[in-house]
């Protein structure tokens, strides 16, 4: 009897060691799979995109056994906190608001946001600079926001829910536009093409990618946006208490930046070097 008991105890202990060692080297990464070219799915349902390939590279470098976990965008941060996965790589911009809840690695890529309309829209041909930075733009940015406020008054603008784009529109920087929120960027694109919304705001590549694939006459208007509510690039989201994992990701990203891997992947997926 005593022996059996001992056997049980030791096997439980062995199991415990097995599990904990497996945990040490396995990282689950949450991604959306619906925000090309950052992360998307091919026709067979396989995850593809810039972040999917970058995650693979980082994991090999970290000697970690990674699994990608699909998660709807609006539950992305709650899912991380509830330990459904250990890191987020989902085109998530580093913002002060999110930093209150989670940590971010250093940014690995950055690209600008832009408004898009259908060809022939009265919003085409707005007189604004090509690009504004809300953090450093100063008077130039203020003037552009004024032009935008006047042009967008009373217009309905579609955005994906819980994004920097929604935050920007609701910040009052462009007056009180009517904001319509969608679960995915695909749905924003569909309603823009259907004419239910006057304009949409998202990463500029999200629109150019859609225009290219669907053949719909979607065009970018106004300035491209960065800084301020648009955050400081895209990084890996990690729980506040996971400081070790944060260090590992920062190390890996640093190496990938120095050896040109991020540039290479960014150029492949975005058509330009979006690395940072």
């Amino acid at each position: 009897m005593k022996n059996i008991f001992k056997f049980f105890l030791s096997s439980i202990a062995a199991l415990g060691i097995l599990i904990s060692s497996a945990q040490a080297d396995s990282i689950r990464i949450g991604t959306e799979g619906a925000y090309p070219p950052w992360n998307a799915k091919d026709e067979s349902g396989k995850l593809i995109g810039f972040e999917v390939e970058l995650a693979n590279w980082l994991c090999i470098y970290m000697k970690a056994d990674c699994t990608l976990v699909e998660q709807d965008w609006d539950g992305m941060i709650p899912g991380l906190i509830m330990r459904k996965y250990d890191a987020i790589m989902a085109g998530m911009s580093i913002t002060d608001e999110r930093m209150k809840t989670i940590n971010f690695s250093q940014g690995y890529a950055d690209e600008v946001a832009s408004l898009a309309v259908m060809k022939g829209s009265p919003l085409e041909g707005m007189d604004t600079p090509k690009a504004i930075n809300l953090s450093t733009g100063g008077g130039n940015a203020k003037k552009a926001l004024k032009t935008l406020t006047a042009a967008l008054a009373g217009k309905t603008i579609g955005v994906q829910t819980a994004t920097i784009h929604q935050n920007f529109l609701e910040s009052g920087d462009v007056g009180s536009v009517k904001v319509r929120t969608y679960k995915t960027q695909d749905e924003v694109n569909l309603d823009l093409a259907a004419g239910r919304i006057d304009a949409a705001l998202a990463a500029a590549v999200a629109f150019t990618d859609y225009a290219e694939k669907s053949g719909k006459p979607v065009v970018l208007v106004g300035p491209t946006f960065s800084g301020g509510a648009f955050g400081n690039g895209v990084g890996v989201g990690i729980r506040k208490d996971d400081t070790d994992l944060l260090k590992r990701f920062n190390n890996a990203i640093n190496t990938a930046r120095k050896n040109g891997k991020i540039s290479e992947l960014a150029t492949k997926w975005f058509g330009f070097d979006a690395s940072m």
Partner: protein
Amino acid sequence: MDLMIESLPRLLKATKLTIELTLLSLFFGIFVGIFFAILRTSKNKILFFISYYYSYILRGTPLLVQIFIIYFGLGQVEWIRESFLWIVLKEPYSCAIIAFTLNTGAYSSEIFRSAFETINKGIVEAAEGLGLNKVNTFFKIKLPIAIKQSLPAYGNEMILMLKGTSLASTVTLLDLTGVAKHIISTTFRPVEVFIVAGSIYLIMTFIIHNFIKFLEKKYKYN
């Protein structure tokens, strides 16, 4: 706890839209339901089949799929966008009402149909014997009995419809669920917000439940 109290006013404000969607859909749904229930008792084969397949398809597919087809699906068809239908279909509000009405109409038609079928033939014969014509027999005898018979099942359908309106948030409407998700998107704390939203749904269900109970008592045979 703070978040629960903070989010309560916004959620209550959004409850107005949820109630509106529920009541309007149920209101239109009753007429759709009675209409198709009558078609089902028709001896005309075509009318019977229309009613049968309407109910079969609408009850056999998820409400989420129906609302997506009406909102995103029809929005892709160019001739619909160029026709007068687009005035109605352009708005997420009317798309939601149409989807909910068609859905609850299908379930209601089944409830009313079975209620009509349980009416004792003797009662109808007695009415005819007293010299009531067909229209009077229907409105004064058959319909009141059928409504009474269908109350428990219809109460259930009302509750299902109330909860079904949460899908309005998938077509950008800011109903109770929509606003709850909106608050979560900035606070990242789903549990607290959904507990408050869930409690509001529960209170509304409680009211419907007791309303039906009250009606059942009122129209009880003695």
